């Protein structure tokens, strides 16, 4: 038998015994489910525990572990009345998850998380320093959307699309609210598009949780709010000055070529030339469009019509 399973079994025994001491007479089935251990393994491990104890290993030294019918009894194991202290890894993982969700404003759990995190920190020997900022415009919609996901209700959105720069109304069936890459997204089935879509919460103008039940089941594995190229998407090639190279990290590059002096030639695909055209306004002199010509025209048009306001 290899070493790892033995250590896993030991970890499980050290975890189970304190709970068994507190809960005399629990059934094999209950314990098996709670600690994720097959009943046969549980019976075997309890049998071994009955051979363990204080050096001397006489009558009064051994742990009493027995199964009568399907009920478990463990006694004479005061040395295992507490679980092993949290390992650094366990403590840091709990702290990370707790601090992150506590940083989301306006969740009903925020206050409980903040106090749980403070207690965890107090009990940790180490001074873990995490600073997490998750505030984004649009997070005021989080709670309503979470409720709609939970109750499986159709939601009416008035949404300003980033790819078309227009505001439309649509009905969606919400699956999950997902925070990624510095923004919150609603992952949902869009009835208008007849396809799954991600909606950025800060682009939602109005939302309305209807009484209509959602029909579409969420996909088995939640989709991250990431772009996957589709047929019909446009290929874009840009040359970027050093001040604009951050763009390479916000798209999924097809190719990325260093041009010297910190300049890059970036090729990627996009479902929305309009979005890229607006990014070009921001990049000013730091970007040059190699292709497509339509992107060049659209950026020039947008820049010219914006400049008319500044005349």
């Amino acid at each position, binding site marked *: 038998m290899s070493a790892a399973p033995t250590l896993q079994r*030991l970890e499980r025994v050290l975890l189970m015994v304190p709970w068994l001491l507190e809960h005399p007479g629990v059934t094999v089935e209950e314990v098996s489910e709670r600690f994720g251990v097959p009943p046969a393994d549980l019976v075997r491990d309890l049998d071994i525990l009955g051979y363990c104890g204080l050096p001397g290993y006489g009558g009064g030294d051994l742990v009493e572990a027995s199964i009568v019918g399907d009920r478990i009894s463990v006694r004479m194991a005061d040395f295992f009345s507490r679980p092993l202290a949290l390992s650094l890894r366990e403590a840091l993982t709990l702290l990370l998850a707790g601090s992150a969700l506590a940083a989301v404003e306006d969740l009903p759990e925020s206050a409980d998380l903040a106090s749980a995190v403070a207690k965890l920190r107090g009990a940790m020997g180490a001074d873990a320093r995490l600073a997490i*900022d998750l505030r984004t415009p649009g997070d005021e919609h989080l709670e309503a959307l979470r409720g709609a996901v939970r109750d499986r209700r159709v939601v009416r959105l008035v949404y300003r699309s980033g790819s078309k720069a227009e505001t439309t109304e649509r009905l969606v069936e919400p699956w999950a609210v997902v925070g990624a890459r510095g923004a919150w997204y609603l992952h949902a089935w869009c009835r208008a598009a007849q396809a799954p879509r991600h909606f950025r919460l800060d682009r939602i103008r109005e939302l309305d949780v209807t009484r209509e039940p959602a029909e579409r089941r969420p996909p088995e594995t939640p989709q991250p709010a990431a772009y996957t190229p589709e047929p019909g998407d446009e290929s874009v090639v840009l040359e970027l000055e050093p001040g604009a190279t951050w763009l390479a990290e916000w798209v999924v590059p097809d190719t990325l070529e260093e041009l010297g002096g910190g300049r890059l030639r970036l090729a990627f695909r996009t479902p929305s030339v309009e979005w890229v055209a*607006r990014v070009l306004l921001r990049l000013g002199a730091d970007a040059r469009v190699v292709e497509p010509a339509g992107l060049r025209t659209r950026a020039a048009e947008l820049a*010219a019509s914006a400049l008319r306001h500044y005349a």
Partner: protein
Amino acid sequence: MTDRLERLINLVIALRETRRPMTAEEIRRRVAGYGQDEYEAFRRMFERDKSDLRALGVPIEMAPLDAFETESGYRIDPKRYDLPELHLEPRELTALALALRATGLYDAAGTGLLKLQVDAGDPDARRVPLEPGLGLDLGAPHLQALMEAQATRTPVRFAYRPLGRDEAQRTVDPHALVHRRGRWYLVGRDHERDARRSFRLDRIAGAVKAAGEPGAFPPPPEVGVDDVVPTAEGGPATAEVLAAPEVAWTVARRARGGGRERPDGWTAFTVAVGEPEDFLAWALDLGPDLVVEEPAELRAEVVARLRAAAAATAAVEGAR
């Protein structure tokens, strides 16, 4: 031959309950599962058991047997072994369980939550469904290793590759981990530069290695979420903008106070600036639907970028 699990449990019990530290020889003679082996074989077996137990987090210490420190032995301090009472309320535990589910860290937390449940009871299953409908992607390469190095104040060494520049080795005293706008940063003292720097985790190439012992540097000054970006000293706090009717609602989100609608249907707002680059990105994304009026320097920057964008595109167009 006894089962290894049995031997390990017996070793933990013996070291925990012993009044004075046990020497290796005492362990060999007295702890069930070791006895019969010749000394070298025992030594190898014991070394392996000791290091596996420590990896699980069992605090096996070495301590002198007497005041002269001529001989030393092993023991487990129950105060370090036992989970301290955290006094978590059941609702706090439920919130932690939800946080682990929402961040996808439930499995990574291992037995941590179950340990806490011994005192705090079980999470409220109705409030912690398997699919909480709320997800938060906190994944970043090296995050776990750097958190551990930071918490133990262990210097680290890694290859760092700023975009568009060459990779270089850095040695850093980790002061804090900062999450901002969906990215993780390590803030710490860069040894070569002898100054505090921030490093994006996704630009660390290859492995993060320890470059010193735990506790190698004193507790560092506090770090905040804004320490990872250059601060705009004395920059403008607010800007005056005009929003087209189509986008007034979205501009209102960033506004300080309400808007003042004008006869032509456009609305004037006072909006927060924050970091100038963020403000410019936001303003220019709205294209012709937003006009920056004040302050003059931001207005000038918007005009400069629009002109540059118009020129860059027109020039190439003309060259064809």
